[in-house]
């Protein structure tokens, strides 16, 4: 499937694409089941599980008692019992009661049992800010998970990727923390969900379009070895981002073009495994690198990415690898969050600092 036609593509929200991925996975594999808080009759607080309980029955999609540790811990047992649970944590910060199960068991079980017990499960988490939520509704928690060996960490930035990466995450035999940028849930792209399904189920390989309408790179391969894509091509500097930060970075790149700067934007798509090769290839070409993410910068995924670029591209770099991240403060209240989030201006300021004088 190399292209989709104007007739078949329609505006689809990320929430709808995620819902379709869940429905298609439930259809394709009788071992898949979906559970969590308010995922049944309500269809999830963001409507990502809308209609699934009705369509697939209460054995396949159900509400649990209100206990995240219970949800994650029983998912471990379900996976041992041969099923493929897809669990939902209602919000990023409400996943913390499950942290013990996630880091002590879900992440370690395969290694502890020398591969005997796979933790084939997906932990879906609505994540990050930009929706004016009161405290505990906007945490960027990717670094906690990315730092924990044994967990794969994925976050889509486009509607097509939301579908493809979630399908691949569910089919993966490793536990995947699937971070869904809240502020993109109701963003729309022109995509053809039927075509995406056909392509995914045929096991087709990568296609890559700049507008993301077909999803970047082969999603199964991305879960195995990392799957960054070039979201916008450029020659003068490489901007690396993922999930919630991508729209601001693309907007900054578009603005920079007016100043005569050609910025390449890489959508990492998978944080673990990280696609070093794609990022390194780009930075070696452009000679400048900026990493953008919404999380607090200290001890962040952005810091890890910057270090990896610096280690691998030192001789190609014209200046230090820079970062734009959230400040090292608890996530702000709604009326102040715009000062926290990396916006276009802050990104362009950092671009200006990428040593252009020579």
């Amino acid at each position, binding site marked *: 499937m190399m292209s989709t036609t104007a007739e078949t593509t329609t505006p689809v929200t990320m929430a709808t694409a995620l819902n379709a991925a869940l429905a298609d996975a439930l259809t394709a594999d009788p071992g898949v089941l979906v559970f969590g*808080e*308010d995922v*049944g*009759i*309500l*269809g999830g*607080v963001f409507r990502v599980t809308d209609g699934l309980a009705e369509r697939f029955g209460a054995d396949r999609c159900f*509400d649990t*008692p*209100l*206990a*995240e*540790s*219970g949800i994650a811990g029983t998912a471990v047992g379900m996976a041992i019992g041969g099923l493929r649970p897809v669990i939902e944590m209602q919000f990023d*910060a*409400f996943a*913390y*009661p499950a942290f013990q199960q996630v880091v002590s068991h879900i992440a370690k079980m395969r290694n502890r049992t020398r591969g005997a017990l796979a933790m084939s499960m997906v932990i879906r988490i609505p994540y990050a800010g930009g929706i*004016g*939520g*009161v*405290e*505990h*509704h906007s945490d960027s928690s990717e670094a906690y998970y990315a730092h924990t060996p044994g967990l794969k960490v994925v976050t889509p930035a486009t509607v097509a990727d939301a579908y493809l990466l979630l399908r691949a995450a569910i089919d993966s035999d490793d536990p995947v923390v699937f971070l869904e940028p809240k502020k993109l849930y109701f963003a729309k792209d022109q995509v053809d969900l039927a075509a995406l399904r056909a392509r995914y189920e045929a096991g087709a390989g990568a296609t890559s379009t700049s507008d993301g309408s077909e999803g970047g790179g082969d999603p199964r391969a991305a879960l195995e070895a990392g799957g960054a894509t070039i979201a916008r091509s450029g020659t003068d500097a490489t901007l690396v981002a993922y999930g919630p930060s991508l729209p601001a970075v693309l907007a900054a790149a578009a603005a920079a073009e007016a100043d005569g700067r050609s910025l390449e934007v890489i959508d990492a798509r998978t944080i673990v495994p990280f696609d070093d090769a794609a990022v390194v290839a780009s930075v070696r070409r452009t000679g400048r690198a900026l990493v953008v993410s919404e999380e607090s910068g*200290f001890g962040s995924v952005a810091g890890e990415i910057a270090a990896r670029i610096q280690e691998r591209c030192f001789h190609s770099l014209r200046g230090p690898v820079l970062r734009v991240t959230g*400040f*090292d*403060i*608890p996530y*702000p*209240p*709604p*009326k*102040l969050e715009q*000062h*926290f989030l990396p916006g276009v*201006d*802050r990104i362009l*300021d950092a671009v200006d600092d990428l040593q252009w004088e020579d």
Partner: protein
Amino acid sequence: MSDDVRDRVRHGTDETAGSAGGAVGGPDETAAGAEQPTNRVRAAARSFGITPEDYMLPARHLIRIVGPDGRVCRSAGEDPEPGHDYPLPADEDLLAAYRRLVTGRRLNEQNSALVRQGRMAVYPSSYGQEACQVAASAHLEPQDWLFPTYRDAVAVISRGVPPEEAMTLFRGDWHSGYDPREYRVGIESTPLTTQLLHGVGLAHAARLRGEDTVVVALCGDGATSEGDFHEALNFAAVFHLPVVFFVQNNQYAISVPLERQTAAPSLAHKAVGYGMAGERVDGNDLVALLAVFERAVRLTREGSGPLLIEALTYRIEAHTNADDATRYRTDEEAEHWRTLDPVTRMRTYLSDRGLLTDDLQAEVQAAAEQAAAELREGMNAEQELDPQELFAHVFTVPTPQLVEQSAQLADELAREEA
């Protein structure tokens, strides 16, 4: 929120300030060989002439004094079980609570209007639960503490926090609008049941410091499924701490009804498993709530150990303004609960008894309007927020990194201005 309550609370803070640096230890209870928790429960049971099991198990009947029609209903042939009968609260307590009830209702209406007008980010309303909100702190002394949730703004206000400060979190200016120590009210906690453990720890600290402090700690029905709920009850019972756990069972946790949370006969039955007494009360009957709280706070202050109160009530509005309740419950169900309304019930009861005259009702209503008007004015006033405050409270002294980041933001804002 009445001035007398606020003053009591403030005054209490000052009075106890002197002991703030007091040494740990001293009170008899902490000495080795102290009375065991089980003995305390036995003593409480003995005082009612019943077995410890009958004391710890909730009464077979729902504790109710005034029925939905506003009439006293327990004389209607129903013999209260021994040890589970509750005397009628004093008239002045009923009237004082009624004032707060009417104001609480009015503030719930005001807050929902402010959300509709976009003056507030979100509001989890306690409309329909105001009797519970008022009763929670009605018997607390100035030195006592309340540990509320996001849904308990009216309880927080009833304890003496100014309405505007109680609403700051939802307006989106800051995470907490008040100093918890000033009012002896914990933060309006969102991560479910985490605050129960804070309440237990506070009670433990007070005991170690020789302070007479009772804690009322609140949560919802859904929250009783969280691990922290069980840890909090167990800690409180094992250390026999003066904590009253108060579960407002409003039937739903967002969309999930109670029967999906628990298979227990009631939430009050959870108490016995931890070795404490549980009681189940009509959460729309302010008279019964006041009676049950009076006894619970008194018993725990006297050393009975913790208690659990479950109030049966209903969340009349959606979970928050962002929620669509029609997806998971019928309008008829909500309409039925409207007929059990706690405010009209109390008004009928007090009027029938001649305690509430037309003049007094007008005065109570006017005070509620006044509180709503003040809140409205405060919330409508444009607030100057200083983005630099984002860096001010993270640590005692901002780290070098925070100083650098705050300078970056200042520079950005200055350039924006220019």
